[in-house]
């Protein structure tokens, strides 16, 4: 036990470990708040789809040797998010099919591009780390950390400011539109925030596991709580706890960060599932 604590202290003295903790918890916070809405709107898989788009964009940015890759990935992902969340009315391809198509398509194109044109010697290693995010989070610079903090503040601020309207639109879009709320604007806002969070989260857990950050805390909270505000706050807290303990565990057990966080999320979901079954019986 004492050994573990000294080991932890040693690791925490490195700045990159502290950066990882800050960025990890912030991303977990943002993605869980969004997750509640996305799960309820039946868009659980948008995280998956968009992260693959981000992967494809990253592959292209890498091959083109762009200096600021985020500047390329971010707009591409935002556009994809807007297009996906716009579905529902007047689209030829329905929501889930559109997500699936974009997701698989951009994954394939991204891998193809990396494989054919990348100058790197270890292509499968590169691909693996972007998909599962094992190394990127260890090489965060101070600038990236501050950018992440700023974006998180923006996301949480927008969420708090428009909370009541976001609720109204999520619960009943028809009624909201009838009472004069411009639902298009809020769907657009949701799409943009989702894209921003996903691009941020790619560094942490990689593009394959982002969905887990989005859906698990939300589903856990929905198992046991009966009001919307409670669900949002609880899933945010739970997600932060999971991310924090996941990162610590991964340091101690030298396991991959992203996968460890998701494993903790899954464990907590099962606990809540049982708790929910117990609560609703009594």
């Amino acid at each position, binding site marked *: 036990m004492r050994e573990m604590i000294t080991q932890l202290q040693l690791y925490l003295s490195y700045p990159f470990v502290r950066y990882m903790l800050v960025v990890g918890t912030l991303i977990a916070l943002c993605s869980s708040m969004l997750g509640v809405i996305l799960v*309820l*709107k039946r868009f659980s898989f948008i995280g998956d789809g968009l992260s693959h788009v981000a992967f494809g964009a990253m592959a292209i940015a890498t091959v083109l040797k762009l200096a600021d890759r985020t500047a390329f990935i971010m707009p591409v992902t935002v556009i994809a998010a807007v297009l996906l969340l716009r579905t529902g009315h007047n689209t030829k391809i329905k929501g889930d099919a559109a997500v699936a198509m974009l997701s698989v398509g951009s994954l394939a194109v991204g891998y193809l591009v990396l494989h054919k044109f990348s100058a790197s010697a270890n292509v499968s290693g590169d691909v693996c780390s972007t998909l599962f995010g094992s190394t990127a989070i260890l090489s965060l610079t101070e600038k990236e950390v501050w950018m992440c903090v700023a974006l998180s503040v923006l996301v949480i601020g927008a969420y708090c*400011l428009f909370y*009541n309207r976001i609720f109204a639109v999520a619960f*009943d879009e028809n009624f909201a539109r009838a009472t004069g*709320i411009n639902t298009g604007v809020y769907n657009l806002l949701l799409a943009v925030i989702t894209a921003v969070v996903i691009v941020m989260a790619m560094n942490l857990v990689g593009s394959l596991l982002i969905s887990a950050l989005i859906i698990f805390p939300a589903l856990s909270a929905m198992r046991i709580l009966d*009001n*919307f505000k409670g669900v949002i706050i609880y899933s945010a807290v739970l997600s932060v706890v999971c991310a924090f303990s996941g990162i610590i565990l991964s340091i101690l057990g030298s396991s991959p960060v992203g996968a460890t966080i998701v494993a903790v999320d899954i464990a907590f979901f099962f606990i809540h599932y049982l708790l929910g079954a117990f609560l609703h019986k009594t």
Partner: protein
Amino acid sequence: MAFITCKDLVLGYKDGIVAEHISFVVNQGDYLCVVGENGAGKSTLIKTLLHLIRPISGELIMEDGILPQEIGYLPQQTVVQRDFPASVWEIVLSGTLTKCGRRPWYGKKEKELALKNLERMGMTEFKTRCYRNLSGGQQQRVLLARALCATSKLLLLDEPVTGLDPKATEEFYELLKSLNREGIAIIMVSHDIRTAVRQASHILHIDKENSFYGTQEEYLQNMDENAPHETTLH
């Protein structure tokens, strides 16, 4: 002055006309039932009344201080709502959003209004309960309370008794009738012609060829006259 006056309205979308020659008036205290076959244009009429789509031609006039967003709308239930983790209070309160203007949070006035309408629907004791755990009839009462927060004059209901059991249906109709007696005008879209005739003061029957609008007695007469004719047609 009438709340809503429609003159020779033609309803539809860019790609075609759904229904035409629709004329009717809704005054304070009226109870208008809109009936018609599936696909006759009932939902298109609702969207037009809510100003979500424009009529292709004809006049739709709203006066007497009614704004489009002041129609208390009770939409059909969606799949999303069935397992939505929201308390009754949160849902009813969301009906007052129009009154908040640009303010992001609810004020004291909005909360009082929501509380009043919750009481009016007899749902005060369910305030903190979860919407998804309520019975169908109770859920409709919650949505009605929310609609009443948005309006004090006119309710627009879209097939409100779908999926309710006979007892809950009867209770819901009673509730509507009592709101109507308080002076709230009601427009109800329904495919249940029998109840429509029993409940409403006016009937609008949407049909591709010839739509009918008139009082309940006129509608019954009209049906009697047309009935033998219709049976020979079939």
